[in-house]
């Protein structure tokens, strides 16, 4: 009730008191282009600004169309397609994993594509690994591989293994991975690592619960353009087990890593607080400072908020974060900036706020001017929608008309526009969709 009243007041003020001098630019969307009609999921996008190439990666079912029928599980391939005209049109996609790899993909652990400083294309994917190490561990182990192309996606290197298959002397299963290329060309891969959970399971023949059922956030670095990776380092020992991970760095300044915490910080609560944190490293990920919450949401839940936050550094060295919280106090999608190297964050700006906001996957991309584009899922209505907003450098915000879709991702182009990709929503009566799309979003100034 309180929220409804505030919303009405907000709407009234919006209509009556908009300052003419700060009318934000309007976001214009191109028509969606269908990339795959069936069996595709969790697309990601990256832009090679130097060469005008846009890469698109996703997971594709091997067994063809679903026909909207209840169906058996299917094996997935990791796909890559590229566009030579800035994302307007894409060429034929190709499978980049080995035939024996059964790809694992969901929106917090998709097939990732990233672009190197010399235009290299990197693709990171997870696949189902070996048999279970212990009967108590009743889920499929994962492992990660990465391939690279140095000729615009025509040929690819042999895949290299990334992440630890053994940690603390027991098998582990890296997941919720992400890939980041820093402005100096260093590659970083982040992931959640359940080695402490597995160590418990191996010694107790049972899975742990509560405070013992937490993952580690780990990061590994490559200094040779993705040919090899150094051993990983631990960023934080108590994190969510199924949330997205991110690494970011500017042209100078610290390296940042983020995910959702699992911190048992509220006295008397059996639930962990799952707020977004950011940790800084001054030595390129060799050691990490104590993580800092982006905001004290107090999102307290013993569940799996399986969504991504967005994390990126602008040209001024400011760290931008956009995230979802399901906190009873203030659920929604928020955005905040740190101007002091991740030591503290400014007040959050609400991008979506309501009495009930189900988990929302959030992605963020900065253009060269420092405008922050945020795409996120809005699942409150009968049809899942994607919302796109741009937090402009003058503090105003532009919003696009939402459109049906799930699992958004976006990347900025050199001209300040963005390429978006997303998955379709199932038609009425169908259980799944399987189609993926792209479109371009630009802003147009409004004359007062």
């Amino acid at each position, binding site marked *: 009730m309180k929220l409804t009243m505030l919303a009405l007041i907000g709407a009234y003020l919006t209509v009556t008191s908009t300052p003419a001098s700060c009318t934000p630019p309007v976001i214009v969307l191109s028509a969606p282009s269908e990339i795959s009609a069936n069996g595709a999921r969790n697309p990601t996008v990256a832009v090679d600004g130097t060469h005008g190439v846009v890469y698109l990666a996703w997971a594709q079912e091997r067994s063809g169309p679903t026909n909207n029928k209840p169906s*058996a599980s299917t094996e997935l391939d990791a796909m890559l397609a590229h566009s030579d005209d800035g994302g307007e049109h894409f060429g034929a996609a190709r499978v980049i994993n080995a035939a024996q790899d059964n790809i694992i993909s969901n929106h917090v652990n998709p097939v990732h594509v990233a672009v190197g400083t010399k235009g290299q294309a990197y693709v990171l994917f997870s696949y189902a690994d070996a048999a279970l190490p212990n009967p108590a561990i*009743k889920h499929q182990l994962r492992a990660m591989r990465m391939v690279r192309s140095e000729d615009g996606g025509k040929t690819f290197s042999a895949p290299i293994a990334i992440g630890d298959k053994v940690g603390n002397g027991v098998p582990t299963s890296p997941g919720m991975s992400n890939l980041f290329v820093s402005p100096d060309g260093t590659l970083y891969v982040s992931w959640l690592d359940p080695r402490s959970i597995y160590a418990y399971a191996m010694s107790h023949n049972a899975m742990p619960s509560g405070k013992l059922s937490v993952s580690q956030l780990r990061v590994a670095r490559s200094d040779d353009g993705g040919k090899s990776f150094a051993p990983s380092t631990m960023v934080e020992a108590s994190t969510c087990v199924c949330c997205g991970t991110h690494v970011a760095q500017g042209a100078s300044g610290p390296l940042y890593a983020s995910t959702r915490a699992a911190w048992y910080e509220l006295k008397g609560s059996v639930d962990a607080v799952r707020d977004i944190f950011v940790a800084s490293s001054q030595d390129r990920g060799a050691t990490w400072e104590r993580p800092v919450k982006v905001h004290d949401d107090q999102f307290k839940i013993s*569940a799996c908020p399986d969504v991504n936050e967005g994390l990126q550094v602008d040209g001024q060295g400011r760290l931008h974060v956009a995230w979802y919280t399901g906190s009873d106090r203030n659920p929604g999608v928020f955005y905040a900036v740190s101007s002091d190297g991740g030591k503290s964050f400014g007040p959050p700006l609400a991008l979506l706020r309501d009495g009930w906001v189900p988990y929302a996957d959030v992605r963020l991309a900065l253009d060269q001017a420092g405008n922050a584009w945020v795409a996120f899922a809005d699942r409150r209505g009968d049809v899942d929608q994607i919302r796109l907003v741009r937090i402009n450098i003058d503090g105003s915000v532009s919003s696009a008309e939402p459109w049906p879709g799930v699992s958004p991702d976006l990347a900025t182009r050199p001209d300040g526009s963005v390429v978006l990709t997303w998955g379709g929503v199932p038609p009425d009566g169908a259980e799944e969709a399987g189609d993926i799309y792209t479109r371009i979003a630009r802003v147009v100034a409004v004359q007062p």
Partner: protein
Amino acid sequence: MKKYLCSAWVALALFSQVAWSDDLTQLPEYTARRLGETSQLDLASLRGQVLMLNSWATWCAPCRSEMPGLTALAQRYAARGLTLIGVNVDEGRAEETVLRYVYSMDLNFTILRDPANHFTKKFRTLGVPETLLFDRSGKLIHHWRGAFDTQSDETRTLIEAALTADGDAPAKLTARGRRLARQRGCIACHATDSSRGDGPGWGGIAGTTTTLADGRKVLRDAAYLTRAITEPDADIVAGYVPGVMAAAIPGKTLGTEDVAALVTYIQSLGLSR
């Protein structure tokens, strides 16, 4: 200054989204496909039962940790009218993955598949796991966000409250079910004790686990009993043959309330009857 004015305006503009109700109080309409099958389960068919709905996914560690406790709850309270329904929301084509999980965890309650996760909208959940408890009238008794302690005193108290919330409603349903069982000729084949007839005796079966002709083990909760009445050949108990009941009741369509009454009556029959 301009920047702050703009920011303030923007914050208000974005805040003024449509306000959605988060105050679910009654069981909404909800239908989903049974795992491994094409048939659908409409929750309305379980009218008169206490419903516990649990949304989960195979990749969700907290979901996995609470499954053994949920199985125990289903077993303990099935005979008294608690029906536990699991709603799996693994995205995409994951049927075999989910089935493997269900077998490996030895789950004894009905699992529905909802890959598009309509559940979250219908029941105003955030994600998985979440569990909702409804009494026999469909009133929401409790909503657990995240994994919960299935064996706690609080959980027991809430379930007891749900089971007893409607006073004499179960007794009235039981009486109606007893009457229907005679009128419709059910008791010609089903004894009200545990004696074997053309069909299994009803006495004491509610809440027990039985083995089906295809080797599966099922908990005879309200979801099972309802289906056994409405789709008699769907789950044939080992030692019995399909087609007998379907042939014995041609044209005798039972309404939802009639089925609910029969199920409640069967649940009321102990082994001593």
